[in-house]
């Protein structure tokens, strides 16, 4: 049975939605990578904490926008605290040691999440109803639109931050050359903390907006974090545009692969495509040649 056009459109809708979530997580990886050179393995836990905190906020009777913002603020604090407590004291260490510290942080945060919220998947109310809008035979949930819209606005905000503000320019200067940035008076260590805080903001927001579709669970960050990392690598590590392209591409391919081929191999398809791309372009789609 060959898939109909409306089926393909349906896969595309869910793929692009998932892909924009991946893109947001991938941007978090990119920010920390550019500031420190490390891969932050706790990025997925930021996502899980965002989802779980939003669930708690909504359960406490907060209006949805307040619950989401409170969750994002909470995760941002976690990100900043992580940098202050575990990364800064080891800043002289090698990249691999720092990466292992983030692995320790991910295990720690996952443990905390399970202790506080328990092992079960928790539901979160859709932001505005669950009545699908049917477009050319494909049903689009309002939540799909919320996710894509929020991700677009966030990216625009991030771009403005990078291009138009002093802080954003300082962060980019640190990414280009840390020593030189320090020489012209940019406090590099504060920029590292900012990169962790901002990555946590992105991760927490990604978790809060995806929770109505995917539920919130203490261990949801493992897979989402991996997919975010894969997206960042696919697009070219360190390139924000690459992170977005990588995320959208990975989400779409994964959704099409699962729909058209065999869903048990959904993740295998995503990773196989990633490997093929890497073999053809060893520094990702938009990465620098000499990474």
């Amino acid at each position, binding site marked *: 049975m060959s898939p109909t056009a409306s089926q393909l459109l349906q896969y595309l809708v869910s793929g692009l939605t998932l892909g924009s979530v991946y893109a947001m997580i991938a941007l978090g990886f990119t920010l920390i990578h550019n500031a420190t050179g490390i891969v932050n393995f706790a990025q997925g836990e930021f996502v899980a904490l965002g989802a779980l905190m939003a669930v708690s906020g909504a359960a406490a009777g907060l209006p949805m926008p307040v619950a989401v913002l409170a969750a994002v603020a909470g995760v941002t604090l976690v990100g900043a605290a992580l940098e202050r407590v575990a990364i800064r004291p080891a800043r002289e260490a090698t990249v691999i040691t720092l990466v292992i510290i983030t692995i320790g942080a991910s295990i720690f945060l996952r*443990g905390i999440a399970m202790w506080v919220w328990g092992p079960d998947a928790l539901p979160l109310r859709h932001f505005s109803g669950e009545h699908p809008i049917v477009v050319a035979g494909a049903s689009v949930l309002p939540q799909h639109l919320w996710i894509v819209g929020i991700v677009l606005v966030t990216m625009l905000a991030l771009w403005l931050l990078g291009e138009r503000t002093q802080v954003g320019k300082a962060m980019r200067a640190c990414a280009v050359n840390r020593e030189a940035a320090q020489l012209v008076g940019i406090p590099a260590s504060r920029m590292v903390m900012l990169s962790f805080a901002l990555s946590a903001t992105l991760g927490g927001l990604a978790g809060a907006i995806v929770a109505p579709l995917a539920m919130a669970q203490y261990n949801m960050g493992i897979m989402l974090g991996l997919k975010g990392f894969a997206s960042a690598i696919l697009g070219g590590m360190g390139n924000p545009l690459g992170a977005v392209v990588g995320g959208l591409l990975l989400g779409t391919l994964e959704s099409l692969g699962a729909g058209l081929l065999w869903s*048990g191999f959904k993740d295998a398809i995503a990773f196989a495509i990633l490997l093929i791309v890497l073999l053809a372009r060893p520094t990702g789609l938009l990465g620098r040649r000499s990474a």
Partner: protein
Amino acid sequence: MTARERTTEAARAQARPAARAAGALTRHWWLPAGAGAAALPLVLRDSYGLHLAVLVGINAVVVLGLNLLMGYAGQVSLGQAAFVGIGAYASAVISGSLGLSPWLGVAAGIGLGATTAALVGAPLLKLRGHYLAMGTLGFGMIANIVMAQWQGLTRGDRGISVRAPLSVAGLALDTELRRYYLVAAVVLAAMVVAANIIDSRVGRAMRAVHGSEVAAAVSGVDTQRYKVRVFVLSGALAALAGSLYAHHSGYVNPDSFGFHYSILLVVMAVLGGMSSIGGALVGAAAVTLINEQLRWFQEFSTIIFGALLMGMMVFLPSGIWAGAAGIVRRLGRLRRAGRRDGA
């Protein structure tokens, strides 16, 4: 031990008879290590202690390969659990499902692990840094999904039980104690082989690749070939460990060889201390035993493990082995300084 350390060690040994004995001991470290391993069951009298020691040994064999790959050749692998799984499933299918000789399963596992590593490593090891990490991670994920989905061969999530024990010279290794001695011998042999490789031409080439791949290539080292060779060795060691695991636990299931285990193996290698043979054993022991002890804390166990891991890496950034060596050196310096002051 590096060549230079060895020369200074030898010079010191000529100077003093007591130091000469100490020098001989460090050169022939496998003698006290073997004696210690042989005597360990006297301390761990119950089978639970021996079971833990076997697990430590199995992990140490994998970490030793990873240590050569990461610490000496400078190439990361986040998919090492796949090779352990390949070894375990080779044993499970050949000895468990088909009922053939267990040693045939071990041999097939090593062969399959090495072949897979060669096939996967040749293209993947052209990647660098985080891209290589992602590439190996992707390979590990795919391999694990295949283990779970290839129902006809692996029985998927139901797993395969492995009843037949390995046997040596007609002696069935069907008790914890006997398996302990087999695993201890394998660990010691693997350590001796690794130490010899490090001190050989291959080892120097590996270290050159780690130092600067460009400089190594310019000096005539075929960097790609050495990287693949080390990867194949690490894959073979991991597969061997997997076979031992299958026969020790008596049951093989895809969950044991996923991303989580790959990460834990890298943690063992870095926590123990890269670029040191002893570090591999120490790292495997630390992570395996800490995880085991933390079971008592139930839901707090992962919280404590994560906090411990962060703390240890912050305070011992080059790993336990190098950290401990540093402390011993500092103590020695203090004692010598004290003696000088007294005289």
